[in-house]
């Protein structure tokens, strides 16, 4: 009964490859996010979608392309992977209504680029 689930949990790949991370939430939330956590544990928002519409895009390179087929899913595709893309990527969701902003996180996907 995982509320926010991400796959894969671990991803090891070579520079230059293309990879995707998938996220699904069963909380009925309207808004989903991708956050990047670097090796120093710093969390930075990348994207946010509300009901399949992109609402936040935080100066992320074009190699990163999010896709939301429906409001329960938000996938992240990364082209031409670079060493600096190594990080833990967290998916999260929140309920738009009520303006509470509380986030529910997935368990993270650790990406290692060699």
């Amino acid at each position, binding site marked *: 009964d995982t509320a926010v689930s991400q796959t894969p949990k671990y991803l090891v790949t070579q520079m230059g490859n293309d990879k995707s991370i998938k996220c699904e939430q069963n909380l009925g939330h309207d808004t989903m996010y991708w956050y990047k956590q670097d090796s120093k*544990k710093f*969390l930075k*928002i990348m994207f*946010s979608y509300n009901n399949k519409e992109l609402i936040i895009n935080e100066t992320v390179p074009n190699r990163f392309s999010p896709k939301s087929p429906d409001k329960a899913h938000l996938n992240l595709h990364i082209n031409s992977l670079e060493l600096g893309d190594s990080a833990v990527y967290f998916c999260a969701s929140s309920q*738009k209504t009520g303006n509470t902003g*509380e*986030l529910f996180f997935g*368990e993270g996907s650790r990406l290692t680029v060699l």
Partner: protein
Amino acid sequence: AQSVSQHNHHVILSEAASLELGCNYSYGGTVNLFWYVQYPGQHLQLLLKYFSGDPLVKGIKGFEAEFIKSKFSFNLRKPSVQWSDTAEYFCAVNRRSSASKIIFGSGTRLSIRP
């Protein structure tokens, strides 16, 4: 621009010691405030939150935080820590008028000596 500062990068305490982790934000408008905790190898989970009302907020596991509007602060406290409190603690804030963008501080690593 909206930002969150956590002054303590790494705090080391003995069990039963009292804890206070600092958090300051820079935004003059109405905000929601959060503390999230990330236990080793796990995802972030909400510890406590402030939206309005009593500025002293109680969360899970004996944690509390006090919102001091005049100081733009939301410090986290616990009177007596346990070894199981070893984790990374993140302060976060979002603007009440823009609930979708939650900004995180850089985190404070808490290590508890048994």
